[in-house]
């Protein structure tokens, strides 16, 4: 196992050639440990790792590293998210060492939503380094055992390095190049933005495969089941970089009263089916927002259970 970069479950699952299945859990808006444990319990044994979001949408929540350590105690592998909005390079490096010391083995490097969207729009943002540079920083710390200033680290962190990709943001033609840059910077795995426009995603993956990027990292396709027509319309109109085709909205509307959520899940299942067969896709990242209790059912129906033991 010495050739593993981090030894995380997610890394082992991918290395063994299994189709990965990851979940997501937002920490509570408070110190409500019980609520967090309850949400995490739904995901135990159902996914390979769980993303712990870092003040997502710039709304203050329990810190992602603290929530991640609670997950570890609950027997669920966290994927610790870190955004560039709230920390300078000193805070980043100390938190990277901190999570590794606590036993966290996956880390997702993100720019972070601008604080204008959040609940403290008056705050000062940091952006000392960007997500690309954060990926390279974690890699340097892990593989070279050096801080950004080239000083030696006394026991380097062990982390499986993740990054995000949004195939639907513009300019579309540049997106595969930006993904390639993240892989060049050191990303071991990629989790994409929620996919709804399958046609565009197929085109994106074709370019990614043509460029050979999928051979250098594991790409997990992002899936978020739609719970309602309102959610679909909101995501399409209000969330930057989200592409929700009209046909999907019409399909959900056509499901009839009380059956929209089931239709949303059916669409997600069809997507997961297609991703399993799509060249270059190594897994699915299921972001069931505040719907953790439905994940076991979705996993079961998608044929994702039982999860491999590696």
């Amino acid at each position, binding site marked *: 196992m010495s050739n593993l970069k981090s030894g995380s479950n997610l890394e082992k699952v991918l290395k063994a050639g299994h189709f990965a299945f990851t979940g997501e859990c937002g920490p509570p808006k408070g110190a409500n440990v019980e609520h967090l444990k309850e949400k995490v319990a739904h995901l135990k044994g159902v996914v390979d790792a769980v993303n712990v979001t870092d003040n997502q949408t710039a709304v203050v929540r329990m810190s992602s590293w603290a929530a991640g350590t609670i997950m570890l105690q609950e027997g669920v592998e966290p994927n610790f998210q870190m955004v560039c909005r709230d920390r300078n390079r000193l805070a980043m490096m100390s938190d990277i060492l901190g999570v590794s010391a606590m036993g966290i083995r996956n880390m997702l490097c993100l720019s972070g939503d*601008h604080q204008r969207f959040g609940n403290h729009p008056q705050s000062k943002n940091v952006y000392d380094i960007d997500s690309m*540079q954060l990926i390279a920083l974690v890699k340097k710390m892990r593989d070279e055992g050096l801080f950004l200033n080239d000083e030696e680290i006394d026991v380097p962190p062990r982390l499986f390095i993740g990054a995000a990709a949004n195939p639907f*943001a513009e300019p579309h033609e*540049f997106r595969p190049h930006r993904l390639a840059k993240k892989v060049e910077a050191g990303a071991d795995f990629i989790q994409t933005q929620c996919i709804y426009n399958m046609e565009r995603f197929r085109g994106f993956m074709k370019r990614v495969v043509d460029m050979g990027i999928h051979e250098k990292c594991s790409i997990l396709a992002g899936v978020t089941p739609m719970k309602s027509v309102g959610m679909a319309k909101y995501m399409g109109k209000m969330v*930057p970089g989200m592409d929700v085709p009209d046909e999907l909205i019409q399909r959900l509307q056509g499901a009839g009263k009380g059956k929209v959520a089931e239709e949303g899940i059916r669409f997600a299942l069809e997507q997961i089916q297609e991703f399993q067969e799509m060249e270059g896709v190594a897994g699915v990242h299921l972001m069931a927002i505040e719907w953790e209790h439905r994940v076991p059912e979705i996993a079961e129906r998608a044929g994702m259970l039982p999860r491999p033991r590696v």
Partner: protein
Amino acid sequence: MIIADRKPLAELLDMIQDCDRILIIGCKGCVTVCNVGGAKEAGILASALKIARKKEGRPLEVDERTLERQCDPEYIEQVKNEVGDYDAVISMACGVGPQFLSRAYPEQRFFPAVNTTSFGGAVQHGVWEERCAGCGQCVIHYFGGMCPIARCSKSLLNGPCGGSAGGKCEISKDVDCIWDMIVRKKTEQGRLEDLLDVKPPKSWDTARDGGPRRSVREELVQ
């Protein structure tokens, strides 16, 4: 140039509420060019303050003066004989002006009439936009002559982020995504390869983060 916006009248009235006689000092520099703090705007502010105070039944006496610049002791000195004759002074210059005045005339109170926002220029008549963040180490030549530090909401050196849509920034449809513009320009120039390498972290020690900056031209220092 330095761009500024006039403070709301109510805020200025509140600053000078205990005054009966004030002096407004305009500046012929940047704030004249961006139509916020020159002789004309000093006159408009004087009238507005007088009218407002007259309505309150507490008339205000206001004189105006406009200096060549307020960022140079040579011009600041030109008001030395009158500055003490007022209850307070309002400076129409950028944030530099009232500081130079305060330093030169420690007994007097100086109030800023404008909010200094940025370094930039006019993009159309009556509209000014930020172009420079004064980071102390110019890098615009890497980005097609556009500054992502000043013009990207996240100051990304390896953009565009996932929030870029329709050429606009995720924070507002009124804000252009500078990274969209950089990528398009480089693509049109056939120089996209310039953007394919990972730009390393920037050193901010020449920016404000490194402490207040000072520029010295040895040949001019006596």
